[in-house]
């Protein structure tokens, strides 16, 4: 069994898988959703730090 014999089949397989591409909107949705999560996480972290500082100040630290 020569692996080279499978090369045309791989090319064909790859071509077949490119026939029904995912829409541009869907790709954009994936990256923007991740960006949104990251922004929310940062916002949460900033709020948490501000709250912690406020609590420490209120306790007269």
């Amino acid at each position, binding site marked *: 069994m020569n692996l080279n014999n499978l090369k045309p089949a791989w090319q064909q397989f790859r071509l077949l*898988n490119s026939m029904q591409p995912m829409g541009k909107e869907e790709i954009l949705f994936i990256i923007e959703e991740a960006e949104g999560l990251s922004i929310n996480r940062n916002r949460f972290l900033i709020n948490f730090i501000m709250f912690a500082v406020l609590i420490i100040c209120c306790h007269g630290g």
Partner: protein
Amino acid sequence: MELQKGNFIRIIDANQGIIKSLCKAYYICPEDQKDAFQDIILQLWKSFETFRGESKISSWIYRISLNTVLTKIKKGKTKIAAGSIGTSELSISIAMADGDIELLNIIIQSLKDLDKAIVILYLEGYKNKEISQILNLTPTNVSTRLNRVRAELKIKFENQHYEFKQP
């Protein structure tokens, strides 16, 4: 930023065949394939900023995609059925394979995760040195693994008579 997104989408759009093929090679369940596809897109987007075009776009896509899938499998996020086919089952499957693509699928599914990545890159036409760079392995390791896969396939194919439709 919008321009960068536009460029990224254009690149992904033109290379979806590679990403989808890798997802199908590693995951059998369509849900897992979709999940892996999204993870790959995210990782590609994260590394897009640092991509300076020193390597071919397809090489960059293969590097990020394969490393994402291999890490995902290592973390055990999803269970895959691949790599668990025994020699006897594989021989039966080969005998029943209807077409080159089906045979390719059977063989790919029978390989271990890292060997699968090496074989896919080999089938894509990459040299051992390039494969080692993409997968962060030594060229000797790649060569040893490829030889082992060839030897295993030779044993599995010993009693099989499969005529390739394409030379």
